[in-house]
């Protein structure tokens, strides 16, 4: 065993190379997220308004009390939850349909896929402007459907339009994730189910859905967290008017328009905690279906 040493030497070199290659990415990711989030916890414990920098002071959990007892926060929270639940549910249904179309269509598969990628790729703000002008009385082709009333000035219709814009923009992404799951369903399995006498619906629910479950969960998790961050569409469509602010809008308004770093940071921390809870619940409820959980294998 005299030549045992070079072998572990080799192994050591492999480790070192692995760390060396990962270090820059890991460093950037952690520095730009971990440090600021900790810093924002620190900021959230202070009275810190940039308009009155002299009044900066440590005030413990007072900011949290202020935010959590504020009805604007809870309205925004409700709006965000509503948008999240509705859009993700609709997107799941539509996305599944679109995934089936993209996966199985007999004609023009390339065209459908190309078309579906446009909402995914387009800048959200651009799409939001398109929807805004579409519903603007006088200008828009859709506003005329409603006798020239202004749907973006009323809360219910505004929220509906925001959700429509969200759904239009992100359904293709959902569909692509689901299509990846569809591709995992072996064709033979479907044939076997057919010969066993399963109807098309039964094949879908009993054969395809179980195989696709991990892909569905991943898609749901990602889209839920993403939907919870809704910001761009609301900013352009209503600017948060008529109580259509999401929590992100509210945090932004407190920070940039209100220049209140303390309250803004408090909201940041609260949003972070909420997202963490959602992610945790997902993983707990559905098991560890998160991507990367099986990433241990080599080559």
């Amino acid at each position, binding site marked *: *065993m*005299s*030549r*045992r040493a*070079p*072998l572990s030497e*080799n192994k050591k070199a492999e480790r070192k190379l692995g760390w060396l290659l990962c270090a820059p990415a890991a460093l950037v990711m952690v520095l730009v997220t971990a440090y600021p989030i900790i810093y924002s916890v620190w900021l959230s414990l202070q009275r810190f308004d940039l308009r009155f920098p002299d009044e900066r002071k440590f005030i413990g959990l007072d900011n949290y009390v202020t935010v959590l007892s504020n009805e604007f926060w809870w309205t925004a929270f409700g709006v965000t939850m509503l948008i999240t639940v509705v859009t993700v549910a609709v997107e799941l249904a539509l996305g599944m349909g679109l995934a089936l179309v993209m996966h199985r269509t007999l004609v023009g598969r390339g065209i459908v896929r190309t078309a579906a990628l446009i909402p995914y790729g387009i800048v959200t703000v651009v799409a939001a402007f398109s929807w805004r002008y579409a519903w603007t009385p006088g200008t828009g082709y859709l506003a005329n459907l409603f006798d020239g009333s202004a749907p973006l000035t009323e809360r219910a219709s505004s929220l509906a339009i925001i959700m429509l814009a969200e759904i239009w923009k992100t359904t293709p992404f959902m569909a692509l994730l689901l299509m990846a799951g569809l591709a995992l369903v072996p064709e033979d399995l479907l044939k076997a189910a057919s010969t066993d006498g399963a109807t098309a619906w039964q094949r879908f629910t009993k054969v395809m859905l179980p195989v696709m479950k991990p892909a569905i969960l991943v898609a749901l998790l990602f889209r839920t967290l993403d939907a919870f961050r809704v910001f761009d569409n609301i900013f352009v469509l209503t600017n948060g008017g008529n109580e259509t602010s999401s929590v992100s809008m509210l945090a932004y308004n407190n920070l940039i328009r209100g220049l209140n770093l303390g309250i803004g940071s408090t909201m940041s921390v609260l949003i972070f905690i909420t997202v963490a809870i959602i992610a945790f619940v997902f993983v707990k409820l559905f098991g560890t279906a998160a991507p990367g959980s099986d990433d241990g294998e080599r080559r």
Partner: protein
Amino acid sequence: MADIVLDKVSKSFPDGTVAVQDVDLEIADGEFVILVGPSGCGKSTTLNMIAGLEDISSGELRIGGQRVNDKAPRDRDIAMVFQSYALYPNMTVRENMAFPLRLAKLDKATIDQKVDEAAKVLELTPLLDRKPANLSGGQRQRVAMGRAIVRQPKAFLMDEPLSNLDAKLRVQMRTVVSRLQKKLGTTTVYVTHDQTEAMTLGDRVVIMRGGAIQQVGPPQELYDHPRNLFVAGFIGSPSMNFLHAAVEDGKLRTALGDVPIGDRIRRELEGADAPRELILGIRPEHFEDAELIDDEARARGMEFTAPADIVESMGSDKYVYFTVEGQRASAAELEELAADAGADFSGGGGNLVTRLSAESPVQEGEDRRVWFNLEKIHLFDPSSGRNLTLHEGRSAGTLGD
């Protein structure tokens, strides 16, 4: 061209597992040697160590008399054919074959000439401008071979080069490989898990198990004189029949009746802790329909009667499966062989595979009188697996002395 010597070569991993242990092997210049064994036996690791793709933990590897332990693959001047063929998908067939020559910085004219030559030998000329993706499996395999032979290396290493081909093509390519090797006369080490390939291709076969060499020799010698239970069971298709045998009153009590023992075996068995239980091994072709045996042969063997379950007529002869009563032979090596063959169910009972003459009128379901040759049987020690009938390198059945 060169000889390859492995001198107590071992491979162990940091976690303590030993993949290859003290392998001693001398491969002569121009020899065609096969490394064979079940998966995980260390044959591929051994090949990779010769190639330089894996470090040697201890021992010495010499190619052409030179120690090459610490040399990079590129400095060993050997070519390798991979199981996956490992053709460069972004290069044409010509570029694939020219790649090693271009790396060796040969001039363009020489490269073209060598590639054309090799392509001609392997009938690849019309395919030279295609990409690997547009080739059939057999064509890819030939390109992989072409890339190996084009630079006339000291040795070829082949890692299961035919295992991705379908059965018919594999048989065909076997002869191509064999002919090519004879023509070029280049030292070749060939890894396979297929014992038929091992038997048909090599000058010598190395049987490995659990990282250690079990036996080295020409195919026929391994077949006729297996050193142990593992080699006996691994070589041959259908494989050797193994039956439980108890030593009683100077005879072997087996499911086929009482088998007499020769003097030498008896002497050995009378030794201090000789086992009372043995394993009797008989190859399928050493059985014959008792009707078809002449008297002279009858005297050299013995007979038994058993029901014929299944008769498979191969044309040239018949494979007949008999059920025999009695205990099954058991040994670690036999279980390992069964696991490797994927036979995790045996169907229960003792099954006997025999190869009888095509003229035998045996019918499925009937009781049949069967003869077997006592001169060709083997006796194994179930604990060590050693072949007790092997005497000075030769076995002579149980009767020999």
